[in-house]
């Protein structure tokens, strides 16, 4: 299989899987889930199969269609996209295993619909990862928004519909209202939207217009949840937990920050932007979001909402790291995408497991739960430590690089923000860990429960292990990122 | 002398128009509209537009009046509501009128033979008619051949109107009208059969009207006249018959199926002549290929299409009249 075929397969496989799921669902639920898992595994094989070639310095590309002269749907594999694709395809397997346990354990309705749109969302994520130019990226970005809408509104009651409306409203509004004009603007001044190492905008645009265009891009990518475009994330908490995991760890928010990193590195070019004074505001916006979201998280009583605000803060880490505009910080940004993905998916899996097993959602209900669900809460602890950035977790690695980049740039605002937010993270995560392990259950639970279904425990154990593995064996990840910033190192 | 007469007629026209708009009695307004049409026809005649004058008289003063009266019989003769936003409307109207009058000051001088209108295309028509078609009435030549495609379109406009009225009136009214017919009206479906004098005079007139129609139809190449006028005159004759003898009898003489056949047939005849031109190796509506001699071909073509026009116009107008007249007795 040539690399071109592999790229195409990465897009088509999940869609074929979706079709297969629909057909299999008419026969039996077991078959349906078998198809899901098989598709996820096949996708991972295909995507990971691209890795050796990429490591060897190849950049396979594929043109799908030319919409209008000069504007085409084109795919191109590069290190950052590869990282994202590998992450998303790998986590899809784990998430599917988890979903099976969650959906069955929770007796959710319309499970077929759930699996189908999940697969479509993964296909869109692959498209975003491999997009070779802005317009392709935008196309799959919108498909991702639309295909996750049925997932978010899964329950279908009035409250869910209202929240889903916020979700869709914010994402579509920002993408059409800001991102699209930014894209057209880019094409208009640069004549192209291709992602090219070193950027395409240098010399094509100058002065305050740079800052304005950057602003249109950054706030246009609502999925990155830079304040004030973050409202959709807490709203989307109405979704089933596997969906939240998808949104927060695998696809949606990652697609957002990924897009921003890609735009800064491949469109503006790090050096060009570093030299442009009007782009400095991005760092402040990201820093503000980190602190503000952490403070809000501190006040949450609902576990999933707390995790949502934590996500907002962590995403801005990535954006801030990128905005430092130094190679080491870019490596930190990319690593943080991975580290946060592993850590946050673990946390959500744990939250979902608690919900399925104990029907508990509020922080105060978690007293002493560690004794009933030791596996789950161990994983949760590891995830929380990674969020704070304590060794031996992946979060430490990424923070290390970000800090190194900040020192490289003598950027004390970034350094201060990282330190402050680490304290804040500790302040809202550690009490939960403490409560879970060392407090006594205040009231006996309505039913005597143990761990969640096996598949869920398995999934969260694996992701917790990955979080630690990222600390221990981060060689390949860093190698990819080294290639990413090669031109600027 | 003719200048004074023109001014007089034009002024009368304006006065009539104001009266139409002012009166609350719709019957009066409709009759005044008939007078309006006659006046404007006379003005057209003064302006050397004999064909137009004849058409306006036949259609505007004749058919339109009958149709309006037919509609009034179904809807009531008095205008109840007043006017809305009179001042605003008047202001709008005044502004547009002044723009128009402003425009007129740059118009070419009235009757100036050097005006662009008379210099560019129309001299060609006068010569072309002599050369290619060889009939005296240039209007007929232009109408039938040079701009025959417009005339085809026009036949289809009439046809469309016929379809429209038939379609509208094929719907069953949802509620029966509560008010009865005017007390003075004739007995349903009977026409004026109980009124001796109109009946005798009318019946004597009908053959002459038909004869005149035929004359107008086929004399169109030589003098004012042609399919439209003739169709309207035929329709007038049948309508008169229906008024005198009653709907039922008129429909017995010319059943509805025949009328629809006429409507479609005329239009088809016209189109067929056009297609024939195409099939015989020239363009659509090129009549010169209809005979060995192109000039004869043109003449044949014009006679045929004028016949088509007449048939459709008569068919449509009679159908529309019946549709209105029959509506009451449904």
């Amino acid at each position, binding site marked *: 299989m040539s690399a071109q075929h592999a790229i195409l397969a990465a897009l088509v496989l999940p869609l074929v899987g979706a079709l297969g799921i629909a057909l299999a669902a008419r026969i039996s639920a077991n078959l349906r889930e078998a198809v899901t898992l098989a598709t996820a595994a096949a996708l991972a094989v295909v995507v990971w199969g691209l890795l050796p070639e990429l490591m060897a310095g190849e950049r396979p590309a594929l043109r799908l269609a030319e919409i209008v002269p000069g504007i085409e749907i084109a795919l191109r594999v590069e290190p950052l996209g590869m990282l994202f694709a590998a992450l998303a395809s790998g986590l899809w397997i784990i998430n599917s295993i988890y979903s099976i346990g969650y959906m069955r354990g929770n007796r959710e309705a319309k499970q077929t619909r759930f699996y189908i749109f999940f697969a479509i969302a993964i296909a869109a994520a692959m498209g975003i990862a491999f997009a070779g130019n802005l317009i392709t990226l935008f196309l799959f970005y919108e498909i991702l928004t639309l295909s996750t809408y049925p997932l978010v509104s899964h329950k279908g009651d009035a409250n869910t519909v209202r929240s889903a409306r916020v979700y869709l409203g914010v994402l579509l509004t920002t993408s059409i209202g800001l991102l699209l004009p930014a894209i057209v603007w880019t094409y208009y001044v640069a004549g192209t939207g291709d992602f090219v190492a070193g950027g395409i905008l240098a010399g094509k645009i100058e002065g305050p217009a740079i800052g304005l265009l950057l602003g249109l891009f950054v706030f246009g990518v609502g999925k990155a949840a830079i304040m004030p475009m973050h409202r959709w994330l807490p709203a989307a908490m109405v979704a089933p937990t596997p969906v939240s995991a998808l949104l927060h760890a695998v696809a949606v928010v990652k697609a957002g920050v990924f897009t921003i990193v890609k735009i800064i590195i491949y469109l503006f070019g790090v050096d060009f932007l570093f030299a442009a004074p009007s782009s400095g505001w991005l760092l402040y916006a990201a820093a503000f979001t980190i602190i503000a979201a952490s403070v809000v998280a501190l006040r949450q009583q609902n576990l999933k909402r707390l995790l949502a605000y934590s996500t907002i803060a962590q995403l801005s880490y990535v954006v801030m790291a990128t905005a430092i505009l130094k190679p080491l910080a870019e490596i930190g940004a990319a690593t943080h995408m991975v580290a946060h993905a592993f850590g946050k998916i673990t946390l959500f899996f744990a939250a979902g497991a608690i919900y399925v097993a104990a029907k508990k959602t509020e922080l105060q209900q978690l007293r002493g739960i560690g004794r009933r669900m030791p596996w789950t809460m161990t994983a949760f602890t590891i995830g929380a430590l990674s969020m704070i950035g304590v060794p031996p977790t992946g979060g430490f690695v990424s923070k290390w690089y970000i800090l190194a980049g900040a020192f490289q740039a003598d950027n004390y605002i970034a350094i201060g923000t990282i330190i402050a937010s680490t304290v804040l993270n500790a302040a809202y995560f550690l009490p939960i860990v403490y409560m879970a392990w060392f407090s006594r259950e205040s009231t006996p639970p309505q039913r005597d429960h143990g761990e969640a279904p096996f598949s869920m425990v398995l999934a969260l154990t694996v992701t917790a292990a990955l979080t630690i593995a990222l600390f221990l064996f981060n060689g390949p990840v860093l190698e990819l990122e080294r290639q990413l910033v090669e031109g600027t190192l | 002398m003719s200048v004074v007469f023109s001014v007089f007629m034009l002024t009368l026209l304006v006065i009539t128009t104001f009266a139409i708009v002012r009166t609350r009695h719709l019957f009066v307004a409709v009759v005044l509209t008939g007078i309006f049409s006659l006046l404007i026809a006379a003005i057209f005649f003064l302006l050397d537009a004999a*064909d137009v004058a004849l058409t306006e008289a036949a259609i505007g003063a004749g058919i339109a009046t009958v149709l309006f009266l037919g509609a009034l019989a179904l809807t009531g003769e008095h205008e109840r509501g007043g006017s809305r936003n009179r001042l605003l409307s008047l202001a709008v109207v005044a502004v547009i009128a002044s723009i128009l009058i402003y425009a007129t000051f740059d118009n070419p001088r009235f009757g100036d033979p050097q005006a662009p209108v008379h210099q560019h295309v129309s001299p060609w028509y006068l010569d072309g008619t002599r050369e290619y078609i060889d009939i005296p009435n240039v209007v007929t030549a232009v109408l039938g051949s040079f701009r025959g495609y417009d005339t085809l379109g026009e036949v289809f406009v009439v046809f469309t109107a016929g379809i429209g009225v038939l379609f509208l009136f094929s719907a069953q009214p949802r509620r029966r009208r509560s008010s009865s017919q005017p007390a003075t009206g004739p007995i349903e479906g009977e026409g004026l059969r109980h009124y001796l004098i109109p009946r005798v005079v009318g019946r004597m007139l009908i053959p002459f009207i038909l004869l005149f129609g035929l004359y107008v139809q086929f004399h169109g190449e030589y003098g004012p006249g042609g399919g439209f006028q003739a169709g309207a005159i035929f329709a007038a004759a049948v309508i008169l018959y229906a008024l005198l003898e009653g709907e039922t009898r008129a429909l017995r003489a010319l059943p509805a199926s025949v009328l629809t056949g006429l409507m479609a047939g005329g239009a088809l005849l016209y189109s067929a002549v056009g297609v024939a031109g195409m099939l015989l190796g020239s363009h659509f509506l090129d009549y010169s290929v209809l005979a060995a001699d192109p000039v004869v071909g043109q003449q044949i073509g014009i006679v045929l299409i004028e016949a088509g026009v007449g048939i459709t116009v008569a068919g449509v107008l009679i159908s529309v009249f019946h549709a209105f007249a029959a509506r009451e007795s449904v």
Partner: protein
Amino acid sequence: MELLGLYHYWVFAILLMTGFYAVIAKYNLIKKLLGLSIFQSAVFLLYITMGKIEGGTAPILQAYGEGQLFSNPLPQVLILTAIVVGISTMALGLGVVVRIKEEYGTIEEHEIREIDRQ
């Protein structure tokens, strides 16, 4: 002659606007149609006026010798068409009015709007 020409055009403008006034200001649908009919007739006058040639005659070739001026046949042809278009529109419009009367029991615009609002 100059003035007579202008007078023709002014009458055109006045007729046009009188008709237009009836269309926009009157509630009665038949009255609107009458206004519309006047509106259209005014345009006929515009065209025919411009076709007139001083000292000309109706464009019928036979009766006269060479050198005879003829009025412009083209506006006449156009207006023949326009007259027929006008009556067609009127016929259809009247049909609609009659149907409105049957369905609503009135042909006054404001009353119809009232009925629809209920």
